[in-house]
């Protein structure tokens, strides 16, 4: 399958926005929102490489030159992994038991399937364009209400040019047991993708969504957004598997809004990309809501990973826990700035942040920065901790005294280091695939 022949190298301008909107015959309110986002994009300056926010990611590498705002997908769709370009087939997860599967190839969604049973219960998993047509009111009320296009320049671009996308809707009281899979596969080198995942979980519902980004080309741009609305008592689990190739610049803003007693578990698996800059926020607006954020990151070569997280405790008795584990080798760099904000209204809340960073080479680096901002007078518990360092020589020695050679001891330690997070990934097959990526990065 050759994508380049059909690729339209639209110029990056306002016309591209109106053309995209027309392509999908969008309602006027959506066109207006896109144009508003475009204005926000135009008004925002390119990031200042010297600013605090860009201390850990090289803003001088950002460029919009030659950007293709829309890269069409094959029109006939894809109904089997064999129909995908060979390097992208694993994202299909053949044999995996899934509630729904949605595959975006370049800018468009080429496959979607949902079990009849869930469909009968009112569950919706579809691309965002279809959702706009078929669930216009819900999308209108929710789209870009958690993540705003005016937050920074590339989100403006995202708001103006998002395409494909995934809409997950779970009605009140419905529990979706198997994971929903949303794969974003970049087949065309140099493409710019703007994937958008919108999850609406109605009261007392539950759902797990696995988003996976993969590419086989030689670079491109991804500017994505994830919005999660968890109503009272809803449980949302979200896994982000980031496996872009080593030429991709990857930007993503993810935000979950939690009502009373809702819970959100976010698992970030950061493996690929040249430059990754992610913002992940959870707003615990409802009393008793809780959050767990887990991260596993493995950088090699010249990869950079730059994460900003916020655990915003707004209502009383909210709880949050963050555990990020990173291994960096070669010249790879990891940065994490994590804010716990316990507001005055969030009495009796509890928060924790833990960042563990293992450095396997002298040139690798990690800069974890936990930040506590506590305005409430009666916090139940607030703690944070961060470590950076090489493999513990005493642990290696201990294992050696049991006959285990140093190289194997080191591998066991690295596997063990990741196990705590990896074991909680809600899919055995995905765990296995992530392990395979880790192995290949370790040269096994």
């Amino acid at each position, binding site marked *: 399958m050759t994508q380049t022949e059909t690729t339209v190298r639209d110029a990056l301008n306002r016309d591209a926005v109106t053309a995209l909107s027309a392509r999908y015959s969008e309602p006027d309110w959506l066109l207006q929102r896109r144009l508003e986002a475009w204005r926000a994009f135009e008004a925002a300056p390119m990031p200042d490489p010297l600013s605090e926010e860009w201390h850990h990611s090289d803003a001088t590498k950002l460029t919009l030159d030659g950007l293709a705002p829309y890269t069409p997908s094959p029109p006939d769709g894809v109904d089997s992994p064999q129909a995908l370009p060979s390097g992208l087939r694993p994202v299909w997860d053949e044999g995996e038991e899934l509630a729904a599967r949605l595959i975006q190839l370049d800018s468009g969604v080429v496959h979607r399937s949902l079990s009849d049973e869930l469909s009968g219960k009112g569950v919706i998993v579809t691309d965002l364009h279809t959702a706009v047509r078929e669930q216009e009111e819900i999308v209108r009320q929710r789209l870009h209400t958690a993540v705003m296009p005016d937050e920074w320049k590339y989100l403006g671009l995202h708001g103006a040019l998002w395409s494909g996308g995934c809409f997950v809707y779970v009605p009140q009281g419905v529990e979706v047991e198997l994971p929903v899979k949303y794969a974003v596969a970049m087949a065309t080198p140099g493409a710019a993708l703007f994937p958008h995942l919108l999850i609406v979980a109605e009261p007392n519902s539950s759902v797990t969504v696995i988003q996976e980004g993969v590419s086989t080309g030689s670079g491109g741009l991804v500017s994505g957004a994830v919005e999660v609305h968890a109503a009272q008592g809803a449980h949302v689990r979200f896994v982000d598997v980031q496996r872009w190739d080593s030429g991709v610049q990857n930007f993503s803003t993810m935000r979950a809004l939690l009502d009373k007693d809702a819970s959100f578990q976010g698992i970030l698996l950061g493996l690929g990309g040249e430059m990754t800059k992610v913002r992940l926020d959870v707003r615990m607006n409802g009393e008793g809501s809780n959050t767990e954020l887990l991260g596993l990151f493995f950088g090699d070569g010249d990869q950079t990973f730059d994460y900003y997280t916020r655990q915003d405790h707004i209502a009383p008795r909210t709880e949050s826990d963050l555990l990020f584990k990173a291994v960096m080798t070669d010249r790879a760099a990891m940065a994490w700035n994590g804010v716990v904000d316990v507001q005055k209204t969030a009495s009796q809340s509890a928060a924790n942040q833990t960042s563990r960073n293992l450095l396997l080479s002298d040139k690798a680096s990690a800069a974890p920065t936990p930040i506590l901002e506590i305005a409430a007078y009666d916090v139940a518990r607030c703690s944070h901790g961060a470590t950076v360092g090489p493999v513990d020589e005493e642990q290696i020695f201990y294992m*050696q005294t049991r006959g285990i050679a140093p190289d194997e001891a080191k591998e066991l330690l690295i596997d063990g280091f990741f196990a705590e997070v990896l074991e909680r990934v809600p899919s055995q097959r995905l765990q296995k695939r992530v392990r395979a990526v880790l192995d290949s990065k370790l040269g096994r």
Partner: protein
Amino acid sequence: MTDGTGTQPIFVVEDLHVSVEDKPILKGVDLVVNQGEVHALMGPNGSGKSTLANAIMGHPRYKVTQGRILLRGQDVRKLTPDQRARDGLFLAFQYPISIPGVVMGNFLRSAMKARRGEDLPVREFRKLLDETLDLLKIDPEFVRRYVNDGFSGGEKKRAEVLQMALLKPDLAILDETDSGLDIDALKTVAEGINALRGPELSVLLITHYQRILNYVKPDIVHVLYDGRIVKTGGPELAGELEKQGYDWIIKEFAPEAVGALAASGAGGEA
């Protein structure tokens, strides 16, 4: 010291000098362990007992500056710690380090594979493991936990003996395996050691206190002081130390050090 049986001793330390960060700690230790013997190595704090254990295993911080360490007549000084372990040396640590993330069961299998040179079939491994857990009164859940992570003092010591039992070393060094144990845990650990000692397993039992020697009867008792073995005798020597403490040793071998040691509180504990 000579080997009275005429056969080759299993383990010999010859005139061993060891420094830590250029500070000499061991100043000429000699030791001959014949097959199947249990040697107790006693001595006041700071005499060099743990240094000897670590040097024998090849810890990189402990530099052998003189002397030899022979296992079955082969000098192990040039071998890495893992090679020494595969050849049959074992150290039960005084303070076993925890390794979060590494599951005990997997760790034990990797270690056994390394020691035996081949993987043990799962069923055989399981059977051996269950028997040993039973012997040491360890909860089977234990193997699903991370290595030494969140273990109580007693659990850590039993885990060390468990590893010794599975790895079947020729010579096991037990570094204060008795310390920090209540009497029941001590009896369990002692029973484990007694069940395993024999022609196949020789033991160097390092202890500050005489207590464990009530349960594990040594063949030979040595007293290490100021980096040298200053006395060697039968089990009765341990009894003597029990009654009199280490003061008489200190007086006899380093009169000038009495004041300093007494001041540090290390003198009269045994």
